[in-house]
């Protein structure tokens, strides 16, 4: 007979921390944590010591001092007597502006080019290939300065328009002027946080137009839902497009007429054009270069996405009698989207991060204001760079969070 022996009662020995797999992972983690904390403490200790030697104790009080410099492009009001914090906010908004504009254009361009690269037209496909290769293989900084140089050298100076009748759109080598919406019976502005550094205004006219538009869209939704119900019951869908058009357009038009809407055209006065919306060269150069550059990458993702869809899908769609254009828009692209979106997220992130190259053309984004002139004038390298990095990190993480959420929504739910 065999007797069952009790497993030996193990008492905890120190060596088990290394040899016993149950404890070993704990040991490794504690060691890693300790190492990390030591490193961190070492860095902070050095920094404190060095800053003390330099006589520059870390302090963020400079943010409340008057900035002293002017910024040409500002989405909210600012002058040279505003604080450095306000200047940083201006820069932040400019970063967001160019990033959003860039992402939209790059996506549109990228999808178009990606599809065109697969075109049956040999010449078009080749041109697009050359485009993609040229833009992908030359540094984006070079493209930015290049675009800026082209804008400056090829477009006429405002002076050239002296005595010339200019229309709605004026192209100068300082920037582009487009008509601005103006209202004779303007409702004025809504002031938020008046008096504080975060103050900003929102036009009530814009809000009114948006409310009218939103109302129209909601009405349209109900009309469509009703049409859908009728179609389900009777099999016939009532014609709705004219009603839809009316409920969307009419309220907006009514509001615009009531407010006395008209377009303000740019006029040459003195040194520059006055009136109209002024899009500066620096913004256009940065926006164009970033869009064109990123579009080349997006085009490659789109192409890869389309090629990933099996040929059977195209053939089946053609067999249903769909025209090539509709095959693309109804069958291929929606499926390709699932493949395209994850790399698209990282392209958006890249574009946003690349927008920090704005200083090369003097666009006053976050790097230009906070990490540029403010850093220079105050000599607060540590504080400004730290704040700047944190802001960029927040922007990046937000973009990936939003896009990941969207990606999860459209992802094919596998059984």
């Amino acid at each position, binding site marked *: 007979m065999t007797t069952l022996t009790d497993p030996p009662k193990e008492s905890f020995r120190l060596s088990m921390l290394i040899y016993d797999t149950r404890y070993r992972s704990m040991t490794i983690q504690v060691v890693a944590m300790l190492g990390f904390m030591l490193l961190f403490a070492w860095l902070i200790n050095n920094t404190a010591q*060095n800053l003390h030697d330099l006589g520059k104790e870390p302090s963020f009080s400079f943010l409340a001092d008057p900035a002293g410099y002017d910024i040409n492009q500002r989405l909210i009001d600012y002058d040279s007597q505003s604080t450095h914090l306000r200047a940083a906010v201006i820069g932040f908004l400019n970063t967001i502006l160019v990033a959003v504009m860039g992402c939209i254009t790059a996506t549109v361009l990228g999808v178009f080019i990606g599809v065109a690269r697969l075109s049956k037209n040999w010449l078009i496909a080749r041109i697009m290939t050359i485009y993609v290769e040229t833009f992908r293989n030359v*540094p984006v900084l070079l493209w930015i300065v290049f675009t800026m140089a082209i804008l400056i050298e090829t477009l006429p100076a405002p002076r050239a328009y002296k005595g010339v009748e200019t229309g709605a759109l004026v192209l100068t080598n300082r920037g582009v002027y487009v008509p601005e919406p103006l209202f004779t019976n303007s409702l004025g502005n809504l002031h938020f946080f008046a008096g504080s550094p975060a103050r900003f205004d929102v036009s009530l006219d814009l809000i009114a137009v948006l409310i009218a538009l939103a109302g129209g869209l909601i009405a349209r939704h109900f009309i469509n839902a009703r049409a859908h119900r009728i179609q389900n019951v009777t099999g016939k869908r009532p014609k709705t497009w004219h009603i839809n058009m009316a409920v969307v357009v009419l309220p907006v038009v009514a509001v615009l007429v009531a407010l006395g809407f008209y377009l303000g055209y740019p006029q040459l006065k003195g040194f520059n054009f006055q009136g109209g919306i002024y899009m500066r060269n620096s913004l256009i150069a940065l926006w164009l270069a970033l869009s064109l550059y990123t579009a080349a990458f997006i085009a490659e993702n789109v192409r890869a996405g389309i090629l990933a869809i099996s040929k059977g899908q195209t053939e089946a769609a053609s067999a249903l009698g769909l025209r090539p254009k509709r095959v693309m828009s109804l069958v291929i692209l929606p499926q390709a989207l699932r493949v395209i979106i994850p790399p698209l997220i990282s392209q958006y992130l890249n574009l946003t991060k690349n927008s920090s190259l704005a200083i090369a053309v003097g666009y006053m984004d976050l790097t230009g204001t906070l990490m540029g002139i403010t850093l220079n004038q105050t000599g607060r390298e540590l504080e400004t760079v730290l704040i700047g990095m944190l802001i960029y990190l927040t922007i990046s993480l937000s973009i990936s969070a939003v896009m990941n959420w969207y990606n999860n929504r459209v992802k094919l739910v596998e059984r």
Partner: protein
Amino acid sequence: MSDISFVRTEMLPQQAPPATSVGVIGWMRANLFSGWLNSVLSVVSGAFILYVVWFLLSWTLSPTWAAASLNECREILAGHEGACWGVIRDRWVQLLFGFYPSELYWRPILTFVLLFVALAPVLFSEKVPAKLIYFSAAFPFIMPWMLWGGTIWGPLTAAAGFVIGYVVFKAVDRAVGSLAGIIAGVAASLVWWLLLAGPVSGTLGDVLNIGLTPVESRYFGGMMLSITIGVVAIACSLPIGIVLALGRRSDLLIVKSLCVGFIEFIRGVPLITLLFVASTLLNIFMPPGTNFDIIMRVIIMATLFASAYMAEVIRGGLAALPKGQYEGADSLGLDYWQSQRLVIMPQALKISIPGIVSTFIGLFKDTTLVSVIGLLDPLGLSNAIRADAAWNGVVWELYGFIAFLFFVFCFSMSRYSMYLERKLRTDHH
């Protein structure tokens, strides 16, 4: 019934296809003019191409090669539009080598050639002798010595650290165990590098002084600077990236969150802010009195930057490996490090090569950013060149030349990476 049906007993000779569907015309009909929309597109884009080519050629072909200043160019061109190539003739060497002493140009050139030799076992594995891998292992020590010069004992003692680490690892591995072996090996190497390597190399240098003329990194510039930063950063980021990727995939919560935190932080901020850190803050983070030169600092930050991206590439490679490989390694009784070293990593790294190449291309292009913090890379040099009174006002020629250089490098690398991807694909199916 008579046989009225007639069946041809021999085939008619094949008729030539209609002239409109073969040859040049047929090709054009199929590829250029297959519908009215396509025809319009073809004509428009054809005209566009002709215009661009004509414009570029008329600008490029300008007899200004010999000009010694922009004013001479203007005289030669006499009011016509045209490029001023004199600036390229005058400065192309500088755009390539920066301020590297001209009598030592053979060193960066030879290093560049050797770089290809060292990469050959990785890039074209089936076409070169396998023994060459030993040279590849030695190259990371040869390269800095060739570029920066100085005594040969520096890189030799540095390399000795790896040998010592390996020997200790083997010994302890056999006696105690794998993990302890690794810890002991790393510790032995660190002790060697931090405490012993300096004095030993110094003594050896006094006894037997073999070396090259030292060249300080501030003489690096132009394309050579871009390549040096790119290559060194990628080479250093590979091991760090592997560690980070393993850390991110590990089950250990703290290790994992440290790795994720590092990777996401670096990937979340623009490179330019990291370069600001290199140019203004890195010295503040170091113990008082330490002083790296700016190119070292840039290389450090570029390495950190690249390693975060590298970690993601390698993580992709690890994730792409079939689960059976992990299970197979486990079933053989290999422990974690053995299975990583013998089974997982060799395969994961292989399928990561295209990703690594594109990370390198990205980093290489991003090295132009160093011009923003005052380093004289090609773009920074273009500004310095324009500060010379003779070339003040030259724009397109310099940008065009730099763009061309980058295009040649990046395009050939991306072609190679595509070739590799194709090759790897056939390996799998």
